[in-house]
Each structure stands twice: as C-alpha cells, then as structure tokens.
C-alpha cells in the first residue's frame, strides 16, 4: 500500500505543535512506528486513520487524496481497521455483536453472513467460548484479540494498531503479537505503533522513528536497528536496553 504525506502538521487548540511538517512517501506492507511517549505517534496514526484532521498538509493512500470532508472521511474509514490501546470495544455489546453490528450496519452484510464471519474469526483467534461475553468479562488479551477480529472482519485495505499490547500484562502480550504476525503472513498490510522493539525489528519490514513531532529516521527494520543514525534514536534504544536481561 502506497502512503504519502506532504508537509503534515498537527497543532491542537493549546497551540502546541505536535507534528512538525512530516514528509513521507513509500510503498509499505508492514510498518512499525516507534519513539518516545508524547512524540506524536498516536496523533499521526489517528490522522492516517481519518479520525482527526491535520492542521496542514496532504495525505495520499494508494494515490488517492484523503479528503477533509466528513462524508468522504466516513467512507474512507470503512476501508480501514483500527485497534486502540484499550477500551476500543463497545462496552454494551458482546464480543460477537462488536464484530457483527458494524458488518451489518456499515458494510451491508446480512445477519447470517455477519455471524458466520464473526464465528470464523473468533474461532481462529481462540475465542469461541468468549463470543457471548461483554468486554468487561474478558481479559485484556482477549479484548484486544476481539478488537483485532473486529478490525479485520470487513477485510480492510489496511490495519492500524495503536500500541495494542501496552495496556496488557506481559503474559498476554505474546498472544496478541502472534495474531498480528499471523495477519502479516496472510498478506494484510498494517501500521503498528509499538514499544515492543523485538516485534518492530523482526516482524515489520519497515520502521519509522518519530520523536518530537519529527520523522527522524525511516527505513528497513534490519538496517535501522543495526545502524541508528541520529543521536535521538541511539538514546531511545539505549534507554530501552538499560534494564534488559
């Protein structure tokens, strides 16, 4: 999937500039966005997902400009799957309803088709027993697996994941990362914001290092981790490694 940004700027109401003119152009399949907290990673992902508008600049996905018009954006969002750090599931719906309701109401599936698709995905993600539970009755790892199932249910062009494992206990992290890795093998394109450096390095083709609202480094993951170019990236990696076993 080809992604392009030109002069992307985001400034919130309080006048702080969160993204400082980002330019980017590449054909990507799996991309990890990494960087220190508050660097603007979530903001960038929200803009790519059409959830918020940039203050200035343009985005193109597969050569098509992402519009600023709400109706156009709503159509655009239909083709994108989004997984949030936490709390992204509808609390009043069961796991199955979380998947079927958007399929029926947004994508025009019949009830039977939607239920079949939900059952298929829940089965694949080891959640068959959990289908009729509401999010509050699921573990964090199960919630995130349902969220991923919902995000890919309508076969989106691209999947966006914003720190899908950050709110999880360590033992649940692997089960979620395994699923995302599986999606890669099925050829689903995704962009993931993550602090799991092992995953960024080994499971994602490309890595972008976002710091202070700027795209400081970008490239093949194998190269980037072996030869960090900027001081900031070296410092960032050094901090992460400090307490490693």
């Amino acid at each position: 999937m080809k992604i392009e940004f030109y002069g992307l700027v985001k400034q919130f109401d309080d006048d702080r500039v969160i993204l400082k003119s980002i330019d980017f152009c590449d054909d990507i399949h799996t991309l990890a966005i990494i960087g220190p907290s508050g660097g603007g990673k979530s903001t960038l992902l929200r803009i790519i997902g059409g959830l918020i508008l940039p203050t200035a600049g343009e985005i193109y996905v597969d050569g098509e400009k992402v519009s600023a018009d709400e109706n156009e954006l709503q159509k655009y969002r239909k083709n994108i799957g989004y997984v949030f750090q936490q709390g992204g599931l509808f609390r009043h719906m069961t796991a199955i309803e979380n998947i079927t309701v958007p399929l029926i109401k947004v994508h025009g599936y019949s009830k039977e088709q939607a239920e079949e698709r939900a059952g298929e995905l829940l089965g694949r993600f080891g959640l068959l027993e959990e289908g009729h539970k509401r999010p509050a009755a699921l573990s964090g790892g199960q919630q995130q697996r349902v969220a991923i199932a919902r995000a890919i249910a309508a076969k989106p062009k691209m999947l966006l994941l914003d720190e899908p494992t950050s709110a999880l206990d360590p033992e649940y992290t692997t089960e979620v990362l395994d699923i995302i890795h599986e999606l890669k093998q099925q050829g689903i394109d995704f962009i993931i914001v993550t602090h799991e450096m092992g995953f960024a390095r080994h499971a994602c083709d490309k890595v972008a290092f976002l710091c202070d609202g700027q795209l400081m480094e970008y490239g093949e993951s194998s190269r980037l981790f072996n030869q960090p170019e900027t001081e900031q990236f070296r410092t960032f990696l050094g901090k992460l490694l400090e307490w490693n076993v």
Partner: protein
Amino acid sequence: MKQLFVLDDKKRTSPIKVLLNVLLVCILLVAVFWLSLSAINVTFDFSFLGNFQVRIWQGFLMTVFLSLASLILSLIVGVLSAVGQNSKILFFRYLCNIYVGFIRGTPLIMQIYLFFYIVGTAWGIENRFIAGVIILSVFEGAYIAEIIRGSLLSIDDSQLEAAKAVGFTKMQTTRYVILPQLVARTLPALTGQFASIIKDSSLLSMIAVIELTQTMREISATTFKLFECYLFLGILYLCLTLPISFISKRLEGAFNYEN
C-alpha cells in the same frame, strides 16, 4: 449464635436468617408504634374505611394518572433541558442551567404556590389536573435533566472514537452507541425518579387536586381517625413505590455491563 445475625461473605443469605432478622425489625417497629399510640389512648379501628372505598379508589387512580402524565411530560422537559445544557448556543445553555438551578434549589411547595398563581391565574388554566401535571413536570424535569446530563458526560470519548473507527455515521453512532449506553445508565435512576414523582404528587393536595393524600386528608377531617387514615395512606403509597424500587434495582443489575 452470632452467625444468625451478621452478614457473612457468602453470596446468598439463607432464608431463615433473613426471616428471623426481618421479624425482629418488625417486632421493634410495631412495639414502638404501639407504645407511642397507647400512651395517648388511641385504639385502631380501620372498619370505617369501607365506607369511603369509592373515594379512596378515585384518589388512588388520580395519583396514578397524575404521576404517569407527569412522568411523560417531565421526561420530555428533562431530555430537552439536558440537551439544552450541552448546547453550543449560549442562550439555550444559560436558560437550561438557570432553570435546573432554580428548580433544584427551591422547595417544591414554594414552586407549587408560585406556579399555580402563574399557570392557574395568569395563564388561565382552570383544570387542576392539568395545572398539577404541568407544575409537577416542571419540578421533576430538572432532576431528570441532571440524571441524563450525568450519563451523557459519562460516555467515554474512547467509545465515540471507536464508533468513528468502525465507520459509523453520526446517526449510527447515536443509534447504536450513545443511546444504548445512555439508556443503560439512566433507566435505573429514571425508575427511581418515578417513585419520587408519585410521592411528590402528594404535595399537589396543597392546590386542592383531589388525589390520594387530599382524599385521605378530607376523610380524616370528617371521621377524626387521623392515625388510621395516614397509616393506610402510607401503605397505599408503598404499594406503588415498592414495586418500582424493586424494578429499578433489577434494571440496575440487568444493564450493568461494566462488571
């Protein structure tokens, strides 16, 4: 022995235990009542109530209808005010804020006298039932507005963002996310508010709406059976409010999807 009287960690308290302790409470209450009343030489005699069957029944129905009509009208007032309080148009915002603040900050009985003067005299609404419903709805509407506003506030941004992300339109977000969560959060409290409406409607006896309280007041004035009349009145109100409180509790359980 002690085990019979204290709550233990088990999910269900055994029926024998419940019965025993409820019985103790009843004995205490009856004893207090009985001693107090016998101190002033009152003996109970409810037989006279049979003579007033029709009037009591009419008063009872009047209270039910008053409360139902007020429930509907106050829901409308409450929803509109809650929306108004969140409005971007400052005029509506301040209007609704002032309305809710005034009503919640002053006693109902003062409002009844004041509004009856306005609604009844200035607007010329002679029908006491209609006047009563309007006054009661204006009062309860402010409380309902607060209930709804609170639930609106408690709907998480994450839920709205998720609704956007799955591709819902604004309408679909309202229909499939906001409304169900709003209903789940407000229904138990709204049911409770209905019990309040029933009780508060008794104050309309002040403007001579012949509802249950007014009926009993009149009966007690002619028979001089004050205690019997008001005790019976209390029981009649409980017949209405206890089932509602029960339903409210059940709804709370049924809609509690947070844990």
